[in-house]
């Protein structure tokens, strides 16, 4: 991350504080299991999956869309198993990334995440990975783990890696 990006990120965090979006756990009744809270999470994850999974997703657009949707569904279904503290932190990250003002400061442009080319989305993620700000490093690692786990947890995505598990009975 260069100095310009660093300042922008600092700005974003400052803005977050000014808007009352705390970056620390807050106790509210809201949980990511509620559909209302899934909005920003779904939008952000749908935008990030194609970047992280670039190279793994099938070339066929329709098939790729299906895999992206299944991966985001799996990630959203997993979140409620995390401690409430971590759920809130993630929720705030999703809200921040879905909020235009913060997107401007964080990513340096006003284009919605989903309208950016895939390479730019990956570059955005790399900005967080290489940032001096621990919170952004955590966001990168957390989202990476969540999304790769959700993608490769799905038996329908195992053919290219030739993973053939034994099944002791039918599961569904």
């Amino acid at each position: 991350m260069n100095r310009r990006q660093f300042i922008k990120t600092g700005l974003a965090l400052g803005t977050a504080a000014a808007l009352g979006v705390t970056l620390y756990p807050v106790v509210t009744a809201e949980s990511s299991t509620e559909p209302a809270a899934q909005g920003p999470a779904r939008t952000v994850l749908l935008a990030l999956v194609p970047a992280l999974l670039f190279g793994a997703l099938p070339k066929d657009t329709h098939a790729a869309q299906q895999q992206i949707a299944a991966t985001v569904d799996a990630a959203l279904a997993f979140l409620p198993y995390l401690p409430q503290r971590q759920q809130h932190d993630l929720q705030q990250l999703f809200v921040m990334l879905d909020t235009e003002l913060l997107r401007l400061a964080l990513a340096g442009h006003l284009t919605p995440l989903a309208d950016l080319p895939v390479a730019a989305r990956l570059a955005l993620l790399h900005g967080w990975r290489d940032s001096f700000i621990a919170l952004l490093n955590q966001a990168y690692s957390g989202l990476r783990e969540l999304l790769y786990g959700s993608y490769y947890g799905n038996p329908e995505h195992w053919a290219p890696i030739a993973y053939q598990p034994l099944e002791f009975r039918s599961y569904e």
Partner: protein
Amino acid sequence: MSKSLIPDPIAQGLASGWSHLDASTLTQDRDFDTDVVIIGTGAGGALAAELLSKAGLRVLMVEHGAFYSSSDFRQQERWAYPNLYQDGAGRKTKDQAIGILQGRTVGGSTTVNWTTSIRTPKGALAYWHEQFGVDFADELTPYFDKACERLSISEWALTPNANNGLIQRGCEKLGWSYTIIHRNVNGCANTGYCGMGCPINAKQSMLVTTIPTALSHGATLISRAQAWQLQWQGDAVSGLLVHPVDAQFQPNPAIAIRIKAKHYVLAGGAINSPALLLRSNVPNPSGRLGKHTYLHPSVICGALFDEDVKGAMGAPQSVYSDQFVWPSDPQAMGFKLEAAPVHPVLMASKLAVDGQAHADLMAQFNQLAVTIALLRDGYHVEAQGGQVELDSHGQPMLDYPLTEYFWRGVRQAYLAMAELQFAAGAKAVMPIHQQAQLYSSLDEAKAAINALPLERYQATVASAHVMGGCNFSADPANGVVRPDGRHHQLANLSVLDGSVLPTSLGANPQLTIYGLTWRNTELLIEQLRKA
């Protein structure tokens, strides 16, 4: 294979009338009264339950996780992690630099562990004697013998899978020491699913051994119930408050299960046991409660082979090397070399790269071997472990700083793993680190490893061995419990799990916990009889 072909001892036991309550079905408060309540059903809690119930005491077990058994297990990580692991296997240290695997199910971590069974190393015993005034040197031996017999622990007789075989081959080439692992299995079919719950009940986990015995001797099990707080007064515990959990294992504070017992056994494992004591605000004059929590923080090195490795299949661990675990240089952090099973979620989520590079590595999934180095923490001023804190929801967070001493150990560990893997015939190796790449010769790997910036988040660091936080000590000023597991201040409270360890072990912990728990439960039975 159809369901009926594999006998399920849990389903059979429940049908025969075992006393089990799934707390998530409760719609109102409940009260229980018993001789001994045991919190947690892992290595420590379940063994204690067997011994106490066989001694004729009324035992009540409380377990946060569900009572799943082989009929429920699926050989799919997407089912196993959320259903059988703490925080859905997403447990992290406070700054999220270390991922922590811990079981949360009936049988605790033993239901999902990798079956490696090692007696407490002499180096650990000597250190405890010197620093904590506790001499277990010979005393634990008969208890290790008993545990080995009870849990069918013996040397693995089949050929190691290729992922473990590389350790053996590399060590032989380099003249390094290695050991064929002893495993707690009976009729193991070498499937490789230990981490998702053994599908054929071959693993002699607590789920299929001590828990059935305890239940057959009249013990009661309350599953899907998180023990929340101990009530205490003066020097005695007077009650335990428990909350049921929901489908995602989150506690429901609206319903209370109140338990009164003559004696309280805490066996929630490291991180969880100290968290319960912190929530209960128990006396802590030594100031050590929750502190000195150890992880064997582990780093990873992948290796590509021309031939198939198929690291998902076969006993996950069957060979280890102790070449570097007790170095003579007191400033060097020792590390143990082992293999880790290679299943897609574990692999994909731990790889430190992304995009096309990630896809390229995953495409070689079956040719990828994974070696891990477990660093031995707790033996140096710069390796004093982590501290358990409570978040605003009352749930634990482990603040575990990674020091220069640790990172020096990591560099040595990367170098050793690369050398081992090349000696075993790898065509390329890659430390799991954000800035590492595949290196195709040892010289190239060494130069790159020596230049890698070693910092949190850059290197993937993980742990499956959580220890300490309620350490034993002869002197109350230096620990939370006595060497026999009894709490230094609260007379009718024992801690019988991995949280009592005063350091890490430099060896996989389960057999140490069995031996120590067996000894301390026998002492407890004697003490309760006298009282």
